[in-house]
């Protein structure tokens, strides 16, 4: 039963996609019920699967493999692998997807390409489930690209807007850069181990085989594959696409760019965790930390509600990556799960707000005011109570306030980094971790307060705002519930005793011992010793962040402008997102434009010119000799032709028409030949 079930789970959304693409427009209500219904079935099946798997087969890994293609003597298989990681991820994806489907029925109502939108959601869900279910890095790459393309299609859903299609392009191309590394990594693995399956690769490494016989290449392979995660999970330096991706419809941002697709990178790192060397892990940890810090610092100063959330997503993803890097495997993955719930909630909540604002602005025929700018909001609390309260829960969760799911996972991550430092040094990692925790609490509460609290910026707009319909609020409530601690562990202050921790265990490293990170036992011991310190610190810092936000924005004790002025260039840098876009624009976009124009010029002038070029040489020659008249260009414009032509012209000048000249030439040649043969 077990293999059919995941297959059905995988293929149902594909079926939905196909049906919606071909028949969506012809169905009643453009088929939204069909897509949502099928997704709901998928969700239910996934839950069944999760319970069965974790409940009854917890320690087993269920795989099935079939030959996809045989090349030479090597056969390449495709297959499905379900371990607890996959089972949990499955539920996360289907749950968020179902809720987003539901939410979209309200949010996207009346859209020009309504059925197309649902079709793409189906395609995305299919691809994402593929990533989760596969046992094989190649197939993962395949689905990896497919989620990329669905993300491309969804970001560009409103493709009439130039900014939307630009954002879609940017997302895809930046991801391609990461995928390039991942692709090379995959090539290395296959060439070394003749297989794409994780299992076989790990076994080979465990047996002491190394890519090209070198430890360096193993580390390189790990980092290269991680490049894929850098792209997809929007890690520094490839994080620039995610904020732009907010051009897509908000539910899409919730689904793809907050909860699931961007977490695929984390999932990927978790999948390949056993083959990562200590060096590779350290790189990963630092990338995560840098990302978390950069994004958090940017998020502080943004005013677009979705942009703030986007940067917060990047920052949280940095957390997860950092956690995996330091070896806090379970914590990282748990953060993925909890984050999926509350970040999806935040986005949907933001969606609800934007939806309401749009409706209000629409009524006022105001098309100049930005519906997403928090400076235009304020005081929406009373108008949208459900949205507000759920939003508050999500904010608490992301800030790591106790009793929320976010606290559980974040706390473990911070403990992990601290433990890592006690083992290896690298104090920067926990330092960044705690700073970012504070920043997170600060900017999230800033967002919450500016949006919902205080006085409305414009009474008129506020009057038009009303609570969203049920299809939109119910998903919010479900997600809010899921952002509370008891779903993950009955102990609100320690996740380690919960089912999650027992279900998802850090896998054993397969790399040669010298290259291994600290063993689980060692690491766990370190974590236990610093756990309480970390917990207290994290609570304090989060509280400080919240307090600061409240002081600045609620009580207005401290002027935000003042702070900004004091921060000086730091503020400027943060507002301008540390100029990443600008630098990339100059270096890569303009760079490639220069290269391509240069090559085009080269192609048309030099390469083609060599063919046509001899002509130029002859022309110079011609002007010197003054022999060749210039009016002889016939229909053959081509250069070689005209070269030959000119030569022909030269020769035909010998043909003077005077018979004695001919004879003179004959005599001359005669003499020359005579001299030659002597």
């Amino acid at each position, binding site marked *: 039963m077990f293999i059919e079930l995941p297959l059905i789970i995988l293929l149902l959304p594909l079926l939905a996609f196909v049906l919606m693409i071909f028949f969506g427009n012809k169905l009643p209500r453009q088929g939204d019920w069909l897509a949502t219904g099928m997704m709901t079935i998928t969700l239910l099946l996934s839950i069944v699967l999760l319970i069965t798997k974790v409940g009854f087969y917890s320690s087993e890994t269920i795989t099935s493999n079939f030959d996809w293609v045989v090349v030479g003597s090597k056969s390449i298989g495709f297959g499905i692998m379900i371990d607890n990681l996959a089972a949990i991820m499955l539920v996360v994806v289907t749950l968020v997807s179902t809720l987003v489907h539901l939410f979209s029925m309200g949010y996207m109502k009346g859209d020009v390409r309504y059925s197309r939108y649902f079709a793409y959601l189906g395609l995305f869900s299919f691809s994402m489930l593929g990533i989760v279910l596969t046992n094989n890095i190649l197939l993962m790459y395949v689905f990896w690209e497919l989620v990329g393309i669905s993300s491309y299609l969804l970001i560009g859903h409103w493709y009439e807007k130039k900014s939307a299609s630009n954002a879609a392009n940017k997302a895809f191309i930046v991801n391609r850069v990461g995928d390039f590394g991942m692709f090379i990594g995959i090539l290395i693995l296959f060439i070394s181990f003749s297989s794409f399956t994780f299992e076989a690769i790990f076994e080979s490494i465990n047996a002491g085989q190394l890519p090209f016989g070198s430890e360096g290449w193993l580390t390189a392979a790990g980092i290269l594959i991680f490049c894929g995660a850098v792209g997809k999970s929007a890690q520094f330096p490839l994080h620039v696409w995610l904020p732009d991706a907010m051009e897509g419809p908000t539910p899409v941002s919730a689904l793809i760019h907050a909860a699931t697709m961007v977490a695929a990178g984390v999932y990927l790192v978790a999948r390949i965790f056993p083959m990562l060397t200590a060096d590779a892990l350290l790189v990963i940890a630092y990338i995560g930390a840098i990302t978390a810090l950069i994004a958090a610092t940017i998020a502080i100063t943004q005013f677009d509600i979705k942009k703030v959330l986007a940067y917060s997503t990047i920052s949280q993803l940095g957390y997860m990556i950092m956690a995996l890097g330091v070896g806090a495997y379970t914590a990282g993955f748990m953060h993925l799960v909890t984050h999926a719930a509350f970040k999806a909630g935040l986005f949907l909540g933001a969606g609800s707000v934007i939806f309401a604002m749009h409706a209000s602005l629409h009524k006022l025929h105001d098309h100049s005011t930005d519906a997403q700018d928090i400076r235009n909001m304020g005081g929406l609390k009373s108008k949208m109570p459900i949205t507000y309260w759920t939003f508050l829960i999500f904010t608490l969760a992301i800030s790591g306030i106790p009793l929320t799911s976010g606290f559980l996972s974040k706390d473990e991550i911070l403990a992990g980094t601290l433990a890592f430092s006690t083992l290896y040094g690298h104090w920067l990692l926990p330092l960044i971790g705690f700073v970012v925790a504070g920043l997170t609490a600060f900017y999230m509460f800033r967002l919450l307060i500016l949006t919902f609290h205080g006085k409305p910026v414009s009474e008129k707009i506020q009057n038009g705002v009303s609570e969203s319909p049920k299809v939109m609020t119910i998903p919010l409530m479900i997600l809010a519930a899921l952002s509370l601690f008891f779903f993950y562990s009955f102990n609100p202050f320690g996740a380690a005793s919960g089912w999650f921790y027992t279900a998802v265990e850090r896998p054993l490293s397969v790399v040669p011992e010298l290259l291994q990170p600290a063993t689980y036992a060692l690491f766990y011991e370190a974590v236990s010793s610093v756990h309480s310190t970390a917990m207290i610190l994290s609570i304090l810092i989060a509280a400080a962040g919240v307090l600061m936000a409240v002081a600045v924005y609620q009580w207005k004790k401290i002027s935000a402008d003042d702070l900004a002025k004091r921060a000086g260039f730091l503020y400027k840098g943060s507002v301008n997102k540390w100029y990443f876009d600008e630098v990339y624009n100059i270096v890569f976009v303009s760079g490639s434009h220069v290269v391509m124009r240069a090559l085009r010029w080269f192609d048309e002038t030099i390469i083609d010119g060599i063919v046509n070029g001899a002509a130029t040489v002859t022309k110079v020659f011609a002007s010197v000799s003054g022999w060749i008249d210039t009016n002889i260009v016939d229909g053959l414009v081509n250069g070689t032709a005209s070269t030959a032509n000119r030569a022909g012209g030269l020769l*035909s*000048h010998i*043909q*003077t*028409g*005077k018979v*004695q000249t001919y004879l003179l030439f004959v*005599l001359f040649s005669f003499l020359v030949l005579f001299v030659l043969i002597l």
Partner: protein
Amino acid sequence: MEILMNTTIFVPGLSHFLVVSALLFSLGVMAVLSRRNVIMVLMGVELILNSANINLIAFSRFTELSLDGQMIGLFVIIIAAAEAAVALAIILNVYNRFNTINLDEINLLKG
């Protein structure tokens, strides 16, 4: 003159003939190349042909070639005559068309 007659030692050898013919040949070629009048050019051609004739006859006198050489000489004379006849006819026709027999002026066909 007298001295020459008396010097009976002098017998023209093959090389004398060859030198004469070579001179004749060169004169013919010179005529062909330098004269602008077609008739004069034709005279040059005659010189060339006859220089060859001198060769042939000399060879038939001085080598085992015997009469073959002289026979060829005869044929050549006939051919030269035929050629001259044809040439003159053509030149006449050219004169009718161009009103000149200056070779430099007859060059419509070129290039």
